[in-house]
């Protein structure tokens, strides 16, 4: 009896003070049926309001365009990247210490084109199913890469052998449960070791409408590596590829960092001019094909994905070559560092 009266009061209260200060939250109602009904009603109301607002916005925009005025400014949606927590380690463009640090770091000789990258790819001791396919695709993506079987060598010994043979980087693909799931990139001679977690691997043959990669040296696109740590990882990835991209080959490899996940994509592109009135003409192959004669045409780039697709996440960055026991870490992820959902490190 008392409970029913309470419910009625609450419901009544909800209707009464609809525009007032106190609103009964659905979570305060104990009865599940009633609670779900109230919640559904609230959601429906919110949906109607949202649709009304959207329609009003569209109408205002159309009216403005018809009248020839400026359409009202579109509001910027709030995203996690927009509201990212302020990070003081973000690289500033005028930081001379950054440039000095860059000159002094382990990749500067490759990035200054003094030496060419030579990559050694190997695996963990047990390798099966998707591993070899992934490795063969990596061999086609990264120029000047060599694959050696792992055997039972210690990783530290492999590092030594690679140094003797003048390799500049060592990539170890680690497999777990018949799937490659970790990537260790070790810079040589005493470069840092980056340990990445690998996920969402899609092989070349599984990509829809895939293209076939050529052997031109690809262009490299590194997006969004803003902080100091990100910058260092970006340079490390850059040191895997030769620094003389062949633009005529129209081949691009992208490492896109978003929310600490690095997405790897491999595309071939072509420039086409899309014309609204005239017929379609295929664009030239060069990048500077923007100066097309057709007046109405917009030049767009069409992409064709080829090669594997995967995401990486940095687990730790170790100073020096691979040495878990005696090594010191430049960056290691600790759970106490995740203080907020808007904090990212790369």
């Amino acid at each position: 009896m008392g409970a029913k009266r309470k419910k009625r009061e609450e419901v009544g209260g909800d209707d009464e003070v609809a525009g007032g200060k106190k609103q009964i939250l659905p979570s305060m109602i104990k009865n599940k049926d009633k609670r779900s009904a109230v919640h559904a009603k609230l959601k429906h109301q919110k949906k109607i309001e949202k649709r009304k607002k959207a329609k009003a916005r569209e109408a205002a925009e159309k009216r403005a365009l018809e009248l020839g005025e400026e359409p009202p400014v579109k509001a910027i949606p709030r995203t996690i990247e927009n509201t990212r927590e302020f990070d003081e380690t973000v690289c500033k463009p005028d930081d001379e210490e950054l440039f000095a640090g860059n000159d002094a770091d382990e990749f500067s000789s490759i990035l200054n084109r003094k030496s060419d990258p030579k990559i050694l790819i190997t695996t963990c001791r047990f390798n099966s199913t998707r591993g070899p396919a992934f490795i063969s695709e990596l061999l086609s993506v990264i120029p000047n890469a060599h694959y050696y079987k792992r055997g039972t060598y210690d990783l530290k010994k492999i590092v030594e052998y690679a140094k003797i043979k003048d390799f500049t980087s060592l990539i170890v693909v680690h497999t777990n449960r018949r799937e490659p799931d970790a990537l260790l990139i070790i810079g040589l001679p005493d470069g840092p070791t980056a340990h990445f977690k690998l996920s969402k691997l899609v092989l070349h043959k599984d990509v829809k409408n895939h293209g076939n990669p050529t052997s031109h040296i690809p262009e490299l696109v590194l997006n969004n590596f803003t902080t100091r740590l990100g910058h260092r990882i970006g340079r490390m990835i850059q040191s895997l590829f030769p620094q003389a991209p062949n633009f005529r080959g129209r081949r691009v490899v992208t490492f896109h960092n978003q929310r600490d996940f690095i997405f790897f994509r491999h595309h071939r592109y072509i420039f086409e001019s899309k014309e609204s009135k005239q017929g379609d003409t295929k664009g030239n192959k060069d990048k500077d094909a923007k100066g097309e004669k057709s007046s109405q045409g917009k030049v767009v780039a069409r992409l064709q994905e080829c090669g594997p697709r995967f995401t990486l996440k940095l687990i730790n960055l170790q100073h020096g070559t691979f040495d878990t026991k005696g090594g010191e870490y430049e960056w290691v992820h600790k759970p106490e560092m995740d203080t907020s959902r808007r904090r990212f490190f790369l």
Partner: protein
Amino acid sequence: MPRTSTLECPGCPPIRALTFDVLGLVKVTEARSKEGGIPKVVDRWGEPDSSKCILAASIDDRKSGPLLAIAREGGLIEILNPLNGHPCLSISNIIDNGPEPGDDAIVGLHLFKKQNLDLSSRSHTLLTCTTKGNASMRSVELTSSHADSTSSVSSRTWNVCASGNILCSQVDGNENYALFGGKGVEVNVWDLEQGTKIWTAKSPPKNSLGLFTPTWFTSATFLSKDDHRKFVAGTNSHQVRLYDISAQRRPVISFDFRETPIKAVAEDQDGYTIYIGNGSGDLASVDMRTGKLLGCFLGKCSGSIRSIARHPELPVIASCGLDSYLRFWDIKTRKVLSAVFLKQPLTNVVFDSNFAEEEVPSSVVDPPTEAQNTNETQESDEEEVQPLKRKKKSSKHSGSKKPKPKKRSKKAQDETVDDSS
């Protein structure tokens, strides 16, 4: 509203710390006001140059005429004035017939605090130790004219270890004994007056599996200022060991800490607490009487800790490391007081303890300091007469000196001005 939580860092008491990094820069960080001051980088000395990476540093922060000695890569040792970064002296540690400086980098450096009180020139003693084990003790004279000072008056070099690399060296509180340890080198204690090795450690016996961990000490410190017999050493296999010279050659207490090598150890003034920092950024305090871990310092440190410094008076420690942050921690609560981002991987940190905050009206200060600036170089000896505390100065600087010279106390100022006039 998005879920964000920012840790409110309580401020620091007034402190001044100097950090040294891999590009050879010395950065001065100060926290100003009494409570709740945010440390900021006040000064930066040196040009970024990776061939001048700073490997070791030692400060002699007496009240009058403090000195800072730093050892750079390539065997170069410099003595600077920690107030304004001016180099007083620079010596090269390269021995003529010795190994290449690239192989034999300096690992430890200590600037002795006791020195001959001589007004016209002061001689200081420096103990340096290199990775191949060449320890050398040299006295240098610092004359008043900063530009060229005569270098090593006397030096004594001896070899500390036959084989292996020295990775850590420390001098005890009374400056009579020094210890050295490293990879393949058991910890040795040497008597500096006589230049003899008085004690060597013995490694613990094989464990139950018959495995023998190779000797690899990565850091060491004496436990208290007065007692040279007890010291703590951290190893590469994440073990912390307490040795007592008067008891036995094997470690008295030994325990494991996490999983990465212990890269830095610092002692507290009470003689039994130590702070250890390891290769993955964990900082903890341990009571060495029992070997019990008192607690860890949680504060998002993500890089290896290279050096820990304890403030001589305030309950504050500073830690710096490869993640380029300098963090100040409160000892009692084990919380971060604040963290400063310093852009380069840091190798060492020292505290400058004679820093006190005082609000002094600037109008009174300005005229005497103008005169004082020009006389400062010659007056450095007269200042020894009365102890001075460095205070915050808000006046503009005159002359061509790049950093602002610190203001002396008013009483001393008047006296020095009187002396000069």
